[in-house]
């Protein structure tokens, strides 16, 4: 999933005709000042940190400016922030509009219904999670006819809109629906959607692009998620890799087995730190790469738990043995292995020849891994 920063989300909105405040992004205080001086953002204006976390208003990450100098100062202050662990690298400057009501509109996927869902609430401007359920209208949208006129009318009613703003909403919802589908998004969200005079303006934009549709959207390839550097390398190598705060490295195949392994380790007092899901590979080179990546995360011990299906046990064993050969002495770690399933005997034999014993029982092997991590820590 690729979460777009507000200004990028607004570029998507602009493409589909969602009405927006006049605005411009800036990466330095002097750029911010220049943007205002050039007139491309009228005064008074808002200066907003371009970070992915919410709650910017309370965190000093949104400021107001009445002059170009103030805009520069605001940008300077915000660009110096680290907001909820994220360095602020960009600010968005936007005209300050005379705002009427603040509304909420989003389209996302309802997994249970297997349909997109249009979510609207007249209580915009706050986190939608904090809004009373009765004040939120959810309408499933079928992709065959697409978002219908009657659904758009119902949305207008739920937002208490009529006249000009209701008409504006109709076009805005069609634009959001198009963006939702054509940009392969998981979420398009406008919060707040502001009533400004007789129309509507999207004051914020939250757009999340689906990873699996990346082949249709090379334009998002450059945009990175909030991954650690190792996670980023893993993504490039198409290895599912998540870093946490424990010290046991877990290598398994398949999300379910990986999670089950974690559950068992926790049960026995282990503290998992890195999860690496080999998925359905049957290429020994990919296994080697995964192991080398794990080594870089410097775990106290590694627990390898593989059930061979598409991924054959011998493939994993071969990749592992090759990785052990390549890992520098300083990065070596104790290894507890459990490999079962397809080509199990062959895999166990390869491991044994490299001095690694596979423990067939999940419970005992997990206990061994916890002990190994304690021993090496």
């Amino acid at each position, binding site marked *: *999933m690729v979460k777009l920063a507000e200004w990028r989300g607004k570029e998507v909105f602009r493409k589909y005709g969602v009405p927006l405040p006049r605005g411009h992004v800036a990466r330095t205080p002097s750029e911010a000042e220049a943007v205002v001086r050039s007139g491309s953002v009228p005064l008074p204006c808002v200066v907003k940190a371009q970070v992915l976390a919410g709650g910017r208003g309370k965190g000093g990450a949104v400021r107001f400016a009445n002059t170009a100098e103030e805009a520069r100062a605001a940008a300077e202050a915000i660009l110096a922030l680290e907001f909820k662990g994220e360095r602020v690298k960009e600010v968005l400057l936007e005209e300050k509009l005379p705002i009427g009501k603040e509304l909420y509109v989003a389209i996302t*996927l309802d*997994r*249970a219904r*297997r*349909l*997109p869902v249009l979510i609207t609430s007249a209580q915009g401007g706050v986190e939608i*999670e904090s809004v009373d359920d009765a004040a939120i209208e959810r309408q499933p949208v*079928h*992709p*065959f006819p697409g978002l219908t006129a009657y659904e758009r009318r119902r949305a207008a009613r739920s937002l208490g809109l009529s006249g000009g703003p209701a008409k504006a909403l109709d076009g805005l919802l069609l634009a959001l629906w198009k963006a939702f*589908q054509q940009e*392969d998004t*998981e979420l398009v969200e406008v919060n707040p959607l502001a009533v400004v005079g007789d129309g509507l303006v999207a004051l914020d934009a939250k757009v999340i692009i*689906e*990873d*699996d*549709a990346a*082949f*249709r959207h090379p334009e998002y390839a450059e945009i990175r998620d909030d991954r650690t550097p190792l996670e980023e390398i893993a993504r490039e190598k198409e290895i*599912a890799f*998540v870093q*946490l705060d424990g010290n046991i490295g877990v290598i*398994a*195949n*398949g*999300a*379910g*087995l*990986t*999670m*089950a392994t*974690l*559950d*068992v380790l*926790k*049960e026995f007092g282990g503290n998992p730190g890195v*999860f690496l*899901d080999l*998925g*359905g590979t049957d290429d020994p080179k990919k296994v080697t790469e995964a192991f080398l990546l794990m080594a870089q995360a410097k775990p106290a011990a590694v627990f390898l738990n*593989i*059930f*061979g*299906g*598409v*991924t054959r046990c011998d493939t994993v064993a071969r990749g592992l043995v090759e990785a052990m050969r390549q890992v520098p002495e300083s990065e070596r770690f104790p290894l507890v292995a459990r490999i*079962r*399933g*397809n080509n199990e005997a062959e895999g166990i034999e390869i491991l044994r020849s490299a001095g690694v014993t596979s423990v067939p*029982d*999940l*419970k005992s092997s997990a206990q061994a891994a916890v002990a190994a991590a304690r021993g090496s820590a």
Partner: protein
Amino acid sequence: MSVLVDRDTRVVVQGITGHQGTVHARQMREFGTQVVAGVTPGKAGTDVEGVPVFDSVRDAVEKTGANASCIFVPAPFAKDALLEAVDAGLTLATVVTEHIPFHDMLVMYHYARSKGSRIIGPNCPGIASPGKAKVGIIPNVVFRPGRVGVISRSGTLTYEIVNGIKEHGLGQSTCIGLGGDPVVGTSFVDALPLFESDPETDLIVLVGEIGGTGEEDAAEYIRHHVHKPVVAYIAGRSAPPGKRMGHAGAIITRGRGTAESKLAALERAGAHVARFPYEIPDMVAEIARAPGRR
């Protein structure tokens, strides 16, 4: 009679000339499945280990009477492959392909449904009924014919659990791996009634994961409609909120879809809840030894 597949299942493998397609066509045959055709556009007239290859599913159906598909084609082309299978009149399609955009899957699901076709998957191990047929990629070695039905959202974890059941001297009636993608063709709630009404299934094992609300919905269904004993396990109890564990199905958001809510719902529904995968075979064996118990 079994669930969805049986000895009359005649499988066409879409993408048979690819590596995965070839390997799993072979394994399906080794399982005893009638793999009657393969499809790869432009390769009509050739064969893969004796299985004839056609340009289109329609041709394959006309020439071989195929009635189920197993789809291995790469994600960008998977939607088209499934639509082709549905239009050719196939009523069952296992989509093994992973990383299909969910927007594509929305079209696939609703189109298939409107035509009366069932999808298993995507990104799933598929379905197998030992001694009868397999449409998918679950390793043959884990199976043994028996009376335990297995429904799972996971891949390898399913193999692990199915294998554990076998190692306890029991066997499976049918096992379905639903896949864990955001949009699945067959959900727990879709699969449960098939096992409930299957005379060859005595007991149902349900393997869930954190994320989504499929397990909560399943619990609700079990509570009202399932009379056979259910053993349930949810993976990811100790996963940190908001971190991805490998696919989009495993995101925890806003308290819904947590392991706690799933486990509580299943317990309320009268399911036997296992805390770890290795507990499942023991529980199954115990219930199997005490028939009539719920």
